[in-house]
């Protein structure tokens, strides 16, 4: 599979060609925030955005989606039967996703697409989507992707990787799916040797600019219960206001709630994002809440990402180092410091 190159002035043209047969999602700036949106014109795309305010996870796991519908009228033979709502099968392209966010999809596959369980909505969306990444020439100060198994030009989870090489856009082909998309779009110009050197020096300088580093090597060797009972949680939890910002901006927080909503004689079964920061997340039908305290909820979030996930899948931490929570937490709870506390944890002698 040969890497290609197009002029930057041809990007809009490429996007319009993609839009002929695909729903195209891309980074869009909206006043004071940014997110991935389905676009209707190429000029909506802003490839200069570093990490968007919201991660692109909603493209695969919508904030809220109707899974089933049902009727309550007893007069029909469909009464009370859950009918699956068809999801739109139109092929989709995510254009300009950062490598860390694409890796997040792979981490979520470990949960939604396993041998034993397959979440049909997740699996279908993954199948119909081609993922076109955009390498990070200038990572943010809060990016620590290189510490958690990704990198500014990492290709895991991508079908194609775009690299901004001044007046040209280099297109690195990662998978057969990506190659097919390029061929379908008629992108043929091959990457020259000179340009290859430009690209590797870009990658080198980007890698060196990442100063933010976290340690993870000891996490899997700690005893979970000892970490769970560590004293530092008390101090970490104080400032937390228990909002859902960290979980909702996070590309790897996947928890959801399923509820039925009924209006007159029709109803839908909805799946919506939920957050372990919310008391309702663990409230039992009996009225008992095993995580009634803020400390317990905050600890759950970090233990899940940096310990339980590590132990269960042996695929590293459930964090891709995008730094969104670091940037957005209203009270500056910095996950990089939690990495440090958890990784360097020593059991206190009794």
């Amino acid at each position, binding site marked *: 599979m040969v890497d290609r190159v197009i002029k930057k002035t041809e990007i809009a043209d490429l996007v319009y060609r993609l839009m002929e047969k695909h729903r195209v999602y891309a980074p869009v700036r909206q006043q004071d925030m940014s997110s991935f949106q389905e676009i209707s014109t190429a000029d909506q795309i802003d490839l200069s955005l570093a990490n968007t305010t919201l991660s692109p996870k909603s493209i695969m796991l919508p*904030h809220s989606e109707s899974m089933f519908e049902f009727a309550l009228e007893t007069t029909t033979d469909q009464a009370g039967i859950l009918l699956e709502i068809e999801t739109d099968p139109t092929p989709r392209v995510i254009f300009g996703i950062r490598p860390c966010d694409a890796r997040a999809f792979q981490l979520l596959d470990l949960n939604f697409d396993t041998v034993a369980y397959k979440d049909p909505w997740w699996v279908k969306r993954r199948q119909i989507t081609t993922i076109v990444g955009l390498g990070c020439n200038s990572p943010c100060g809060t990016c620590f992707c290189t510490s958690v198994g990704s990198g500014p030009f990492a290709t895991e989870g991508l079908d194609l990787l775009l690299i901004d090489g001044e007046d040209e856009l280099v297109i690195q082909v990662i998978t057969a799916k990506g190659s097919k998309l390029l061929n379908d779009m008629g992108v043929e110009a091959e990457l020259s040797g000179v340009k290859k050197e430009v690209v590797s020096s870009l990658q080198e300088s980007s890698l060196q600019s990442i100063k933010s580093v976290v340690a993870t090597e000891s996490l899997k060797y700690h005893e979970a219960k000892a970490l769970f009972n560590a004293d530092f949680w008390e101090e970490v939890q*104080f400032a937390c*206001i*228990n909002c*859902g910002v960290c979980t909702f901006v996070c590309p790897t927080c996947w928890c959801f709630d399923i509820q039925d909503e009924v209006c007159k004689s029709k109803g839908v079964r*909805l799946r919506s994002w939920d957050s372990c920061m919310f008391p309702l997340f663990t409230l039992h039908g009996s009225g008992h809440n095993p995580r009634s305290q803020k400390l317990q909820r905050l600890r759950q979030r970090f233990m899940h990402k940096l310990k339980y996930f590590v132990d269960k899948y042996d695929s590293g931490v459930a964090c891709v180092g995008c730094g969104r929570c670091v940037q957005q937490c*209203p009270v*500056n709870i910095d996950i990089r410091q939690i990495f440090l506390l958890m990784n360097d944890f020593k059991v206190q002698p009794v």
Partner: protein
Amino acid sequence: MHTALLLLTERKVDVVLGFQRGTIPMMSHPILIRHPEGTDQLHWDSFCSTNLANYLPQRKERIAIFAKGCDSRNIVLQILENQIKREQLYIIGVPCQGMLDRRKVLTELYGRELLGVRETSEHLHLLGEGFMDSLERSNYLQENCSICTHRNAAIHDELLAEPVSEQEGVDRHEDVRAIEAMNAEERWSHFEKLLAPCIRCYACRNACPMCYCPVCFVDESMPQWLGKSIDPTDTKTFHFLRAYHLAGRCTDCGNCERACPMSIKVRQLTKKLEKDIAELYGYEAGLSLDQRPPLDTYRPDDPQEFIR
């Protein structure tokens, strides 16, 4: 820092509630200090905008707290609403020149990486690799701070500096009047647009020092008052009801708007209620321990024009 050290050393308080320097530029981190040696972590700059009163309700210790004008007004309200006792508190008033809006400053960077900031009385200097920009402080105030008329603590046990002069002739409700002037249809579409980006993370609610209900109505499950999806009707219901719960209790500290990851101007709702309460009852929230919020008290001469 010295004040806090003395208070802890002389055991006049059990804990000090203040700020630590944040891990990224233009951020601060609220901390609770229990030991005198911890006081060297204390920090103060123009990004200590979090309202520390948010951490007070139902605490049992004797607490020293650093309080800007708005923080102190929320403390007054919490005392009136029996969330904390006056005698538990040692309020260290910090006369405030207005806090700076981190997001507003970030828009001046155009993608350049900010390594740090330095402050002088009139300017904010942005430091990065190969650049140093100077911004005029007054242009980057949080919006609520730019129209604040109570920069000094309403109640205090000690002041950290000479009181600052209060801003006069400020038009606090220009944006509210603009919305009032709309017809019903325009106003509805204004609110729909305003609240459309909401992701229901509840940061606005949780950042609010007056939102301390043990169980918020959005978290009730039997009965469940509100849907869990991002249905626009549910989202609007949350925001409108939250605002109404704050009628006569909001000090416009701006913590809600600052916490919102989507930069939604949620203060437009609370400011309308602030204006109504001022017009109907001549009351401003949290200025005195002798005046209860008008909606939790009754007077025979309360205005009644709106119940016709």
